[in-house]
């Protein structure tokens, strides 16, 4: 059943290519129907899922001579991220309703990307996971290079190469694990139970973790993210920040940490105060949080503010993973969901509602336009999204970041203080951007000279409401997702991870 999320997306892309060149309207509607169908399938799977346990979706021999299977399955973590993908995909289509240049191809690439993302979240065979992971790279390139803005070709190539280098590192780790285990299987559950030699895990873990971490915006490999987000068209930045960065974080948790749990153990000696890879990555994640927030504070371009904010928020996910605490991991998974929704919303406001109307993202120029009067809906949406992003109670971000913080407090007390500083700076940059972009001092002369801005359209309103609604629902009733995330973290798959952490 859930497997149809993948098939529907790819089929939709194929049908789009067969449409005649001129049928823009049909292309949009077809794309919308496809993503809605994908989301509906996910929702059915979500409702049927009682307790987050692992449910096999499809399983067949693929390359028998190598022991590779076509194995799709879903547990609570997968389902949470599938839901996220569905929601962001729908609002992404709604926010790209105004694309008129090569519409058909735009949505074909878009749906291919979505299909690849669904595939990653569902794969339980490592080769299959890798296949879908790479399928998601190429459409990103074209979406940015063809429909993007500021320095689009540079940003697209940078993003593609960063992703590909990351996946090359992952591939090395996977092939090595496959050969070392010698069991002729790529099945995640079976390989996770294989006791790899500790010295092997000590180099394979950081390799695979960084490989996936590049896509999750791990500092200092995050530089693709701000440039990529800024150059991408609205829907693509929503997907990039909302879903694609989650692919990286998901890979870190699902592949790197379950396959090589001993890689997190202490080295037995100290270098510059680090005693294990866990310390190293926790510090990198922390630097990501604080550094991203500080850079976001001084940006002139509205979209760069959000781009660096993404790096900062993804730092919470990675830091949560490194706590190896139940509560920290819960928080990390919830933060993946929360950040996906909120980053999507923020990019939609900046890219679609503001930039497509004013054709500028320069905060000092926006300051003179007094946007809160001309497009009040955008202002309200941004205020709500900003509050959620700051981590105010009642929104999804609060629950997620609180859990991560508690986990960090227990494991790395000093880091928790620094993370708090990051959160405070987070309030500051959102406040500054809000003030400048929407509530700046009106310049009378400029206001009369510019023609009135087009009103916010219905698709935009619906998209914004869907995203705000999901954030509020999860914020008010986090148990909705936690009830399947928590049991999923206690599946046999994670056994060796918990065992390692209790030593």
């Amino acid at each position, binding site marked *: 059943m859930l497997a149809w999320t993948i098939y529907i997306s790819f089929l939709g892309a194929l049908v789009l290519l067969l449409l005649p060149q001129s049928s823009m309207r049909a292309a949009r509607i077809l794309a919308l129907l496809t993503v809605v169908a994908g989301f509906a399938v996910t929702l059915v799977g979500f409702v049927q899922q009682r307790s987050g346990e692992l449910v096999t979706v499809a399983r067949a021999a*693929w390359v028998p001579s190598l022991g590779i299977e076509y194995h799709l399955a879903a547990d609570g973590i997968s389902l949470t991220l599938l839901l996220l993908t569905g929601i962001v995909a729908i609002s992404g289509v709604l926010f790209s309703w105004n694309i008129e240049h090569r519409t058909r191809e735009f949505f074909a690439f878009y749906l291919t990307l979505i299909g690849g993302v669904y595939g990653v979240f569902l794969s339980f065979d490592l080769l299959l996971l890798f296949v879908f992971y790479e399928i998601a790279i190429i459409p990103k390139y074209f979406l940015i290079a063809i429909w993007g803005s500021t320095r689009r070709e540079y940003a697209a190539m940078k993003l593609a190469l960063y992703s590909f280098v990351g996946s090359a590192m992952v591939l090395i780790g996977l*092939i090595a694990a496959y050969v*070392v285990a010698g069991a002729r299987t790529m099945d995640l559950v079976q390989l996770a139970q294989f006791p790899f030699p500790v010295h092997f895990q000590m180099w394979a873990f950081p390799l695979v973790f960084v490989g996936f971490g590049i896509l999750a915006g791990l500092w200092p490999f995050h530089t693709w993210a701000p440039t990529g987000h800024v150059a991408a068209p609205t829907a693509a930045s929503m997907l990039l920040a909302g879903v694609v960065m989650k692919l990286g974080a998901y890979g870190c948790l699902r592949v790197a940490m379950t396959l090589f749990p001993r890689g997190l153990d202490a080295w037995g000696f100290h270098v510059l105060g680090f005693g294990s890879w866990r310390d190293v990555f926790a510090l990198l994640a922390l630097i990501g949080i604080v550094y991203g927030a500080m850079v976001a504070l001084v940006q002139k371009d509205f979209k760069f503010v959000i781009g660096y904010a993404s790096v900062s928020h993804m730092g919470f996910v990675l830091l949560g993973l490194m706590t190896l605490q139940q509560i920290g991991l819960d928080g990390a998974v919830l933060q993946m969901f929360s950040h996906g929704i909120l980053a999507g919303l923020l990019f939609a406001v900046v890219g679609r509602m503001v930039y497509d109307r004013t054709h500028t993202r320069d905060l000092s120029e926006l300051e003179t336009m007094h946007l809160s009067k001309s497009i009040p809906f955008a202002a309200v949406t941004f205020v709500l999204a900003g509050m959620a992003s700051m981590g105010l109670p009642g929104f999804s971000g609060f629950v997620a970041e609180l859990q991560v913080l508690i986990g960090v407090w227990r494991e790395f007390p000093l880091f928790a203080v620094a993370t708090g500083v990051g959160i405070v700076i987070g309030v500051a940059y959102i406040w500054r951007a809000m003030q400048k972009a929407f509530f700046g001092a009106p310049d009378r002369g400029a206001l009369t000279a510019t023609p009135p801005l087009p009103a916010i359209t219905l698709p935009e309103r619906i998209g914004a409401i869907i995203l705000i609604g999901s954030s509020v629902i999860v914020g008010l009733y986090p148990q909705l997702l936690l009830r399947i995330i928590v049991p999923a973290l206690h599946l046999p798959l994670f056994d060796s991870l918990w065992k390692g952490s209790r030593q």
Partner: protein
Amino acid sequence: MTTINYLDLLHLVLPEVIVILGALCVLSVDLIFLRASTMRFRGSVGAILSLAGCAASVVWILHAPQSANILDGMLVLNPLAQRMQIVLLFLTMLTILTFIGSTFTQHVSEYLALILLATVSMMFLVSTQNLLLIFLSLELLSLSLYILTAFNKHSARSAEAALKYFIFGGISAAFLLFGFSLLYGLSNSANLMRIANSIHGPLLDPLLIVAMVMMMVGLGFKVAAAPFHFWAPDVYQAAPAPSAALIASSSKVAAFFILYQVMVIGFAGAEGSSSWHSYASGWVPVVAIVAVLSMVLGNLVAILQTSVRRLLAYSAIAHAGYMLLGILSHTQQSLVALIYYAITYALTVLGAFGVVALVENETGGDTLSDFAGLSRRAPVPSLCMLIFLLSLAGIPPLAGFFGKFYLFSSALTSTSGTLGLLWLVVLAIAMSAVSLYYYLKVLKYIYVVDPSAGATSIRIPVLRQVVLCLIAIGVVLLGCDPNLLLHWL
């Protein structure tokens, strides 16, 4: 030595004989009956006759599989060799089909006959384990390819490329022959099996090492591995498109197969090792050095290219480097991986040359800017090119990705449990990450850049579109379900 009845011999080599008859048929029909007809008609008749010849040969091999090892290894027929013959015939047929209607020469029948002769030599090449016959078939192959390269008489660059190819080929043939003679002197036999038996010993004879290096030079030239690659960019760029496609596809498959045979069978017992921290002299380190050079040089130089054909040439050098990994790990599994890789690579690069030829017909050049906006002017070939180039870059689910995965995992498995070849695999994967850059650059011109003002959509013959689509579908299918081919190998 056993004596053999000539009629029996004829029976064994009937597939080759059929192809030769096909070549003669093409020549005579064209020269006797069709002198007055239009070029188009002559081209079609010639192509149909050649296709018929190849098809008949395939049918015969399938219908009456042979198994023989006669005349001191001169003719070795086994299921593997026969499958390789079928693959080569199949690739030749695809080459002819892709380029039906090319108009660079008046002498269509001679051109087709030469392609068939090259195919015959490749068929002999894969079904022999005797130094003499290896050398003879390699020479027949090379001579045909030199002429095929020079066949465009209106282009001075074509002649220049052929001359370069010929000079380098001559030198490398001399190296090869010298290596063979040393080997014969050492072992008193030209049969690869017997050579392996007699060179077996605890210490390698210095002469043997010289022979090894000489042969690597000679065969490295055929597979276009660095540093013996200097002919490749010029030939790929200036040869007529079908010749370049033939050199890049089937000739490469045959050359890799024979390189594997010579090294693995002929030098069995003198492998040595190139594992990390446990080097031992032998032929494996020699191949490893060539592989590293090819991967690094091919990928890095390809980045600088502005001509798509030259870019394909350097990428071919890089791919030769990857494939050498399959040879130096020399297990049964790595042989299968190597053949899978070589076949899918040949298919892909054949299709890519098909698209390049289309663009050349339309714009008169093959630089990146000639591809600008192709996706708006010819959507179907553009989509095919997208598939071919991404497959070459190793993006799943295309055949190129699975080929790489299989090749690299078999290389790691070959040193049981020690991951000795990990350093080579890491290098190969890192280099293939580099390669994505230049493949994406071509795709950027096709999909992102707008076509030049006034450019209209390109009219493409239906047959050519169909063939390109078939090759593209083949690349996708072999990637999605590699078992289709693995099962058969």
